[in-house]
């Protein structure tokens, strides 16, 4: 049955993951993300948020359960990982950019070498994306010459250059100086407003409240509760959620 846009773009069903050490990091995660939806995942560190995102683009293989991205099963030994990853963009906490390449080269590398697209055309798109993240003029800068926030924005532009259908953000502002956080959050918010499907792991509660269609709280490898941000933050039901929010707010 082919996937149609009215079905969840990302669908996790009872996802289990145990790392070599024997600790079960994901204990049956189930969630649906619709096209154009923005979800934020919050939770204490070590609760499996990063692992969850990494499972979606097959950086981490899962043990049990199912992950469908546009109807394609990720938990399948015959999966074409590279094809999956063309549809799923991901930005990490840090060390995203390739330090030996300029900002423009970073953005252009994958479309040119992976998608084999025309270089001139890719360059045009890359310049537009760099403008979109408000870094026009920094095309020839090396990552080392950019602030952490600027690096993250270039990293976002680089992922977008692959024209993904869903973007994963793993605490992309957690390693930044406070004054550069805002620019990155603005970029993500604009992306969300443009209708990009986003799965965002974040510690920025104000941002989550503002941008998310739905907020998920994870603790110890399980999804404790989720809901629209207003309800979620105003009246969390589970005591663990309440305790976490009390600590962080």
């Amino acid at each position, binding site marked *: 049955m082919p996937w149609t846009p009215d079905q969840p773009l990302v669908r996790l069903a009872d996802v289990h993951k145990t790392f070599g050490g024997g600790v079960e990091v994901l204990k049956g995660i189930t969630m649906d993300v619709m096209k154009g939806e923005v979800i934020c995942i919050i939770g204490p560190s070590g609760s499996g948020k990063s692992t969850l995102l*990494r499972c979606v*683009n097959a*950086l981490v293989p899962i043990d049990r359960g199912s992950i469908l991205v546009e109807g394609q099963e990720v938990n399948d030994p015959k999966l074409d990982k*590279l*094809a999956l*990853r*063309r549809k*799923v*963009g*991901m930005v*990490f*906490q*840090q*060390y*995203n*950019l*390739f*330090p*030996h390449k300029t900002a423009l080269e970073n953005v252009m*590398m*994958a479309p040119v*070498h*992976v998608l084999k697209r025309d270089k001139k055309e890719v360059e045009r798109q890359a310049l537009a994306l760099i403008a979109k993240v408000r870094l026009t003029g920094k095309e020839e800068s090396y990552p*080392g010459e950019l602030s952490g926030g600027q690096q993250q924005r270039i*990293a976002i532009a*680089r*992922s977008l250059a*692959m024209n993904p259908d869903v973007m*994963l953000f793993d605490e992309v502002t957690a390693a930044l100086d406070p004054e550069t956080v805002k620019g990155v959050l603005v970029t993500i918010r604009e992306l969300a407003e443009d209708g990009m499907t986003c799965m965002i792991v974040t510690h920025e509660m104000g941002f989550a409240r503002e941008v998310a269609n739905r907020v998920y709280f994870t603790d110890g490898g399980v999804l404790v509760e989720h809901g629209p941000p207003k309800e979620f933050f105003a009246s969390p039901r589970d005591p663990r959620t309440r305790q976490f929010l009390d600590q962080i707010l």
Partner: protein
Amino acid sequence: MIANRSDMAVIKPFRIAAAEPWRFTVWHGLVLVAALLVALGIGEAQAAAAEKPGIIATILKWTPLLAQGFALNIAMSFLAMAIGTVIGVPLGLAQISLLPPVRAGSWFVTQFFRNSPWLVLLFYCMLLLPFEVNIGGTIIPLPGWLKSTIGLSLPVMANVSELVRGAVRSIPFAQWESAESLAMSRGQTLRMVILPQCIKRMTPPWMNLYAILTVATPLTSVVGVSEAMTLTGDILSSEARTELLVPMYLYLLLWFFLYCYPIARATLALEKRFQVR
């Protein structure tokens, strides 16, 4: 593994990973020059007392021959470095292969040659390699110096292999993940993202390895190669003068210092520059 460390860096296996690699410093040079001056002074006095030709004059007389020998040391160091690098890089890449047997095999080869004393490898090559090889009807002679060079290239190969592995491992894992999540294949990731960054990290220790190798080339005198050390011995026995012994060897050492010290400086400068970024 500290127990394995020794100031005889050349003969004992050495570890690049150790905090400070062994290298020539300006102090080595000062001590060497001072010792040479003292030895020359004493030698000249002894020569004058025995009414023999001056030490300095004798040393200068033999310098062209010594230079010939030294040229062979340099040639062997170039060739051994080239062979060691050309084989060591793929060996290092094999150490990070996704195939467990390839990984295990290359790890074993690397460890074996890295931990064998250089002198033992030299003797093995001298004794086990034939004096000529027959490749498709063409007979290629393998003179002693070439066999020794191959012997020296083995530890170089193992150390380069380890350098490659170490450099790859020193790249933050997020670089791999970033490349992978851009749908780059493993080969593309290595070629375009990981290895270009490794080259920068590997260059200073690689240069240091070269300096160590150069200082190790006189080991080949033990197996009879006519390099500078062997020639110094020959010169001394033909002159048969005890007062010449110490100045002559110090003079030879000075040659190695003058060749290796600039390399050590350049290595340090590169390390500093790479640290800044």
